[in-house]
């Protein structure tokens, strides 16, 4: 109980002191300091913290240096500021004291009531969602989401696991390929080894061939050298003395020929001489005969007397013939000719013609004359001739001319011929004899010539032999042979040089010496390398053929290998690449699943926990319900006391909004639909009821009945008195209604009044 409030320095009060009774009425107008007193009282009773809203308000209003004190009877009151303001300090209706929060006083009162003023039912309701197993609520939805994620993760894991199996299977396949690849490699190696062998053979053969060529080069060189030596040895034949030889030979031949010619000539001459001698002898003998004949002939001829020629008869005959013809022709032609020719010319032609005819006639006469008388003598002559001449003998062959002559002339001619013949013969004889002499003379000179020619020939032969002997030749042809041989040798040397030259080129050496060195060296090297000298060309060819075959096979194998390698490494690469990352991905999936499961467990756990908490709140709320019903009853009775009527009050929840009051018309209405007086009465009743539940307190009423009429005010005061009697609380009333003084004095036994100036 407060005994005294002293305001040493508080607002407008300085050194003011006020006594308190069980009921104290402070009367005063606005501005009289009621609010100040109220605040001082509030501060003394509640000690609001400096930084709280109330504390700040007091500081702002009254400054830091405010000073007040209160004396208590008995234990001092220490009230919670909000409790005080919300519960013990009752003002009228809408006038509210500022509170810590904007909640209504009813809400604030809840701290003094059960459950700390919080409706456990509300808390239970707030947990409804979290505790619910219903599908449309958060936990179930979260679980459903988690389940979907879990299914997705499981599917992914399944996919990964099957991919893994597939890859492992594929890798095994690749491994099979790898094995095949290994086999291929081995085959390839074998082929390569075989090829190597063949190549070695071919190479060996090549070496052998090269060695051959080198050896032949060396041989060429040897040959060349021996040829050269040979040639050197017969260097005498380098120079061509065949001219000389030829000369010698020719000389000899000439000499010999001259000699043989001379001999021949001599022989011939001898022969001729012999012939000539014979001839001369013959002639001589013939001459005799012929001479005799000739003499005869001459005789005979003379007997004939004439030297007929015979020819003229023919000639005459011809001419005569020709003349006749001509005359005929002329005769025929003449008339025409004369006709055509000028007259003078024709006359001439005629004359000539006549002449010719005359001639011819003459000639004819002559011939005829001469022919006649001859015949007789001819026979005699022929007979004579047959008798004396040596003709008509058998063996003369040809018929003698004399005898044969048929004509006079002929005979004469034949006899003349005989004479001639004898002359001729004698001439011939003479000629022949001189010829013979000439011949003998020639023969004589000829043999002298032969002797000198012999000597010359012998000389020439000696010269030739000497020449040949100097050169060691058996004969002249031998020289040529030797020379030819030498020439052949020289050309062989040239050939050999050519070969050697080519060999030099082939071997790339400058000269023969280098060739020898080089070839020897290389042969030496080759010899060291060659292990199968017996290797034949055929072997090498076979090896080459096999090599070609092997190379082709190797190529095929290589291609297959490349393909396999590509597929293996490609496959392996893919497998490795995928398989390599799979475990991490699988792990990730599994971790996701573990996480989701853990979260689901957490959600379930939270839900169950929420359900348990909710249940506990509900239990508490049940208790609250009872209390609320109790409270409603109490308020209702207080209300009834205030309005002097039984009015039903319904408080379904512990908040203003749910309060229902039956109005004067009998309808249940919410508070805001009631009249101001009724509402204020209700609120007053509610606050008093609630306040009464506190163990200790004080009621500070600030013009609480402003809105109540006189009857209601009296009721309220009566109720207050009853309240005081029940609780024993001190009551402080502030009012500006002076009529309150009497009402208070009427109602309360120990009331004090303080008039504020």
């Amino acid at each position, binding site marked *: 109980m407060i005994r005294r409030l002293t305001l040493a320095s508080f607002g407008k009060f300085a050194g003011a002191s006020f006594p308190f009774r069980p009921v104290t009425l402070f009367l005063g107008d606005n501005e009289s300091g009621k609010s100040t007193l109220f605040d001082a009282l509030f501060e003394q009773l509640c000690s609001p913290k400096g930084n709280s809203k109330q504390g700040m308000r007091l500081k702002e209003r009254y400054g830091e240096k405010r000073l007040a004190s209160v004396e208590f009877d008995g234990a001092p009151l220490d009230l919670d500021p909000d409790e005080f303001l919300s519960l013990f300090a009752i003002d009228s209706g809408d006038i509210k004291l500022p509170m810590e929060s904007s909640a209504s006083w009813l809400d604030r009162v809840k701290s003094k009531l059960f459950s700390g003023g919080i409706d456990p039912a509300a808390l239970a309701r707030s947990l409804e969602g979290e505790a619910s197993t219903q599908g449309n609520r958060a936990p179930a939805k979260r679980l459903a989401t988690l389940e979907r994620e879990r299914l997705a993760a499981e599917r992914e894991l399944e996919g990964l696991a099957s991919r893994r199996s597939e890859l492992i299977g594929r890798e095994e396949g690749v491994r099979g390929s790898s094995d095949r690849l290994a086999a291929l490699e081995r085959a390839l190696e074998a082929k390569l080894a075989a090829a190597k062998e063949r190549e070695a053979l071919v190479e060996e053969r090549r070496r052998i061939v090269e060695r051959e060529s080198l050896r032949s080069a060396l041989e060429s060189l040897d040959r060349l050298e021996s040829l050269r030596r040979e040639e050197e040895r017969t260097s005498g034949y380098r120079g061509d003395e065949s001219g000389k030889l030829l000369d010698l030979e020719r000389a000899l031949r000439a000499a010999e020929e001259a000699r043989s010619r001379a001999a021949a000539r001599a022989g011939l001459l001898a022969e001729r001489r012999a012939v000539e001698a014979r001839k001369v002898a013959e002639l001589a003998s013939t001459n005799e005969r012929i001479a005799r004949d000739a003499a005869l002939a001459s005789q005979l001829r003379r007997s004939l007397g004439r030297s007929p020629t015979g020819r003229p008869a023919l000639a005459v005959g011809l001419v005569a013939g020709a003349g006749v013809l001509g005359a005929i022709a002329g005769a025929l032609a003449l008339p025409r000719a004369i006709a055509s020719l000028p007259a003078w010319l024709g006359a001439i032609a005629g004359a000539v013609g006549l002449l010719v005819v005359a001639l011819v006639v003459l000639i004819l006469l002559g011939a005829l004359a001469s022919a006649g008388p001859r015949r007789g003598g001819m026979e005699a002559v022929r007979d004579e001739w047959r008798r004396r001449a040596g003709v008509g003998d058998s063996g003369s062959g040809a018929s003698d001319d004399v005898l044969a002559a048929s004509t006079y002339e002929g005979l004469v001619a034949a006899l003349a011929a005989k004479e001639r013949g004898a002359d001729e013969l004698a001439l011939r004889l003479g000629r022949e004899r001189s010829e013979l002499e000439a011949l003998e003379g020639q023969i004589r000179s000829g043999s002298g010539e032969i002797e000198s020619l012999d000597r010359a020939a012998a000389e020439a032969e000696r010269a030739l032999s000497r020449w040949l002997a100097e050169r060691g030749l058996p004969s002249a042809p031998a020289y040529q042979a030797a020379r030819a041989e030498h020439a052949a040798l020289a050309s062989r040397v040239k050939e050999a040089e050519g070969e050697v030259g080519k060999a030099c080129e082939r071997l790339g050496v400058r000269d023969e010496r280098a060739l020898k060195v080089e070839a020897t060296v290389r042969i030496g090297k080759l010899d060291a390398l060659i292990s199968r000298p017996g290797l034949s060309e055929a072997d090498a060819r076979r090896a080459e053929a096999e090599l070609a075959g092997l190379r082709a096979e190797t190529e095929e194998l290589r291609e297959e290998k490349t393909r396999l390698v590509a597929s293996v490494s490609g496959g392996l690469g893919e497998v490795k690449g995928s398989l390599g990352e799979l475990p*991490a991905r699988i792990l990730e999936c599994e971790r996701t699943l573990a996480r989701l499961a853990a979260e689901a467990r957490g959600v379930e756990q939270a839900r169950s926990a929420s359900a348990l908490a909710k249940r506990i709140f509900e239990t508490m709320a049940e208790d609250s319900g009872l209390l609320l019903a109790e409270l409603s009853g109490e308020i209702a009775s207080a209300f009834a006391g205030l309005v002097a009527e039984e009015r039903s009050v319904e408080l379904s929840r512990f908040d203003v909004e749910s309060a229902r009051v039956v109005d004067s018309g009998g309808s249940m209405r919410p508070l805001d639909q009631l009249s101001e007086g009724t509402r204020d009465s209700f609120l007053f009743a509610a606050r008093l009821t609630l306040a009464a539940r506190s163990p200790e307190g004080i009621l500070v009423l600030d013009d609480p009945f402003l809105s109540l009429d006189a009857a209601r005010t009296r009721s309220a005061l009566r109720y207050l008195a009853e309240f005081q009697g029940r609780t024993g609380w001190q009551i402080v009333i502030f009012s500006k209604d002076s009529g309150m003084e009497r009402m208070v004095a009427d109602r309360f036994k120990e009331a004090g009044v303080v008039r504020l100036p």
Partner: protein
Amino acid sequence: MARIIHCADLHLASDEAAYSLAVLDEIVALAASADFLLVAGDLFDSFADLERMKGELRGRLAALPPRCRAIVIPGNHEHLRMGGASLASVDLGPGIFALERPFARFEGAGVEILAIPFAESYADYLEWPVPPKGARARIVMAHGTLASELFAGVPDGEEPGGVFDADLFARLGCDYAALGHIHAARSETSGALTLSYPGSARVWRRGETGPRTVCSIEVRPDVPRLELSTIALASAGEYREHEVPLNLDGSLPDLSAIAEGWRPADWVRLLVSGVINDEHAARGLERALEATYGGRVRRIELDRERVLAFDGISSEPIARKFIELWAAEEPATNGAEREIWLKAREIGLLKIKDALERRA
């Protein structure tokens, strides 16, 4: 018969030297009666730690009886903070550090061991030459993550890379895959192949709950299958996490029940939750915890992330009422129900706090 001790992820670190070396000692003691000690990577926490602590390691390995052959493969951690150095220059003892790529090969006591050093990617495993397999059991050591549901787990900050497929081991003709990198002990058998992570040999980071183990493998000549068993390492202790709802006034509830199970090598983390009056009070809790339990466990800490503050909540009737009713719902067992029950408290208090804030 051969006996192999398979461990991994010991993460010897100079800033946890005593703890990590104690575990190493226990492992070496176990290996003394074995033919092989296989360390499947991350023996050291970083290259810098390797440099600093290799002397300690060498000493202990040298003390192994000659019968036991130690083989260590580098994990991803041995590559951390290497600067310009190379693992090839590291000498952990003769023939101990297996660096040959793609793998090194060892034999002894009737078994064959292929040791794969850590690589960022094993994608080329298809091209690895597989040595012909004799009658011996073949063990393959590797460091990485096996892509398999069993080992996937929720990613908890493991370094990426080094993922391999079980096919890698199948291809290598492996009977037992001695793996490292995943810190939770797991094993799986598919066909004739057993793959196993012993888990981190010591607690390396928060969340590694359960006992720390090594695997022990026995190979008998007459028995085709390898026998696999796990051995817990006492000196490694355990990482224990407890959800502890704070009282409204910010004080800890009674921990004696859960503290009973705590062992000296344990690392205890209390995840406190709830709405309390004053967050400063929560800070004081750590000191209080350290004072009370600091000596009883290797390390104790508080996680205050889920603690919210609302001034006066401890005097709020609704909060008290809620707690009262909630406490009555406590389940009898430890497990999912308990988790839900604890979570309900958080949710309820959060709602109350929001409502209180709205009220104010």
